């Protein structure tokens, strides 16, 4: 019991005489480099994410527009064919 108490006291004193640890000597240069890279939004991952999202939305819009247009064109040609053969009248006379 007494031995454990002494051991704990020794552990608690183990930081006595501790020296301050030193930061990287090139810290200022590293900070400057980081700040310069942050200034350029092109390089940031957030910008890349937004650019990808915007690209996908644009592609989806273009695809939908093309699809709608081709559907309309198909409908127009069917209507023309129907009128040529006189199938435009939807009322049936028996």
């Amino acid at each position, binding site marked *: 019991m007494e031995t*454990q108490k002494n051991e704990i006291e020794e552990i608690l004193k183990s930081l006595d005489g*501790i020296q301050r*640890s*030193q*930061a990287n000597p090139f810290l*200022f240069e590293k900070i400057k480099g980081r700040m310069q890279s942050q200034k350029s939004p092109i390089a940031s991952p957030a910008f890349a994410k937004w650019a990808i999202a915007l690209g996908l939305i644009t592609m989806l819009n273009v695809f939908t527009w093309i699809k709608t247009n081709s559907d309309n064109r198909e409908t127009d040609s069917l209507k023309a064919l129907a009128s040529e053969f006189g199938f435009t009248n939807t009322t049936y006379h028996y």
Partner: protein
Amino acid sequence: MSESELIQGLLKRDEAAFRFVVEKQKDRVFNTSLGIVQNSEEAEDITQDVFIEVLESIHFFKAESKLSTWIYRIAITKSLELIRKRKRQKRFGFMIRLFQNSADKPEVDIPDFVHPGVLMENKEKAIILFKAIESLSENQKIAFTLHKVEDLSYEEIAGIMGVSISSVESLIHRAKLNLQKKLITLLK
């Protein structure tokens, strides 16, 4: 360079003033962060973040305390943010492991932290002490670390933490009691 000149320089984003502040305070910031987060790479990242924050937020500094006190506060806030993030990740990792076969992904074993400034003959004991310090509450951890690792006076700690000197005394006293309890379990 006086403190008000430095502040004016930082407000104008003067490189010489910024370099002066970084060179003067970097060891304090690094040592404080290292004592709290107990990892050299993360402490260095925090140190960089702190000085970027100093430059970006200098217009918020009201000069009611010393510039160094304000910088210490930023360092402590950033270090605690990292510890909270780590805890969240640990909880999330635990949840994931619950749904995974434990043999698929073994838990990463974090190596023991050895503070580079500890005297050679105390290294092994200090490893145990830093392990015990991790179990302290945030305020007790800050007060104890600033006192023992940064060698700050109770008055300086009170200024940084924004509490009275008697509160700091009480925090350090309770930290020591909790460390004794933790050490009993660690030594079993």
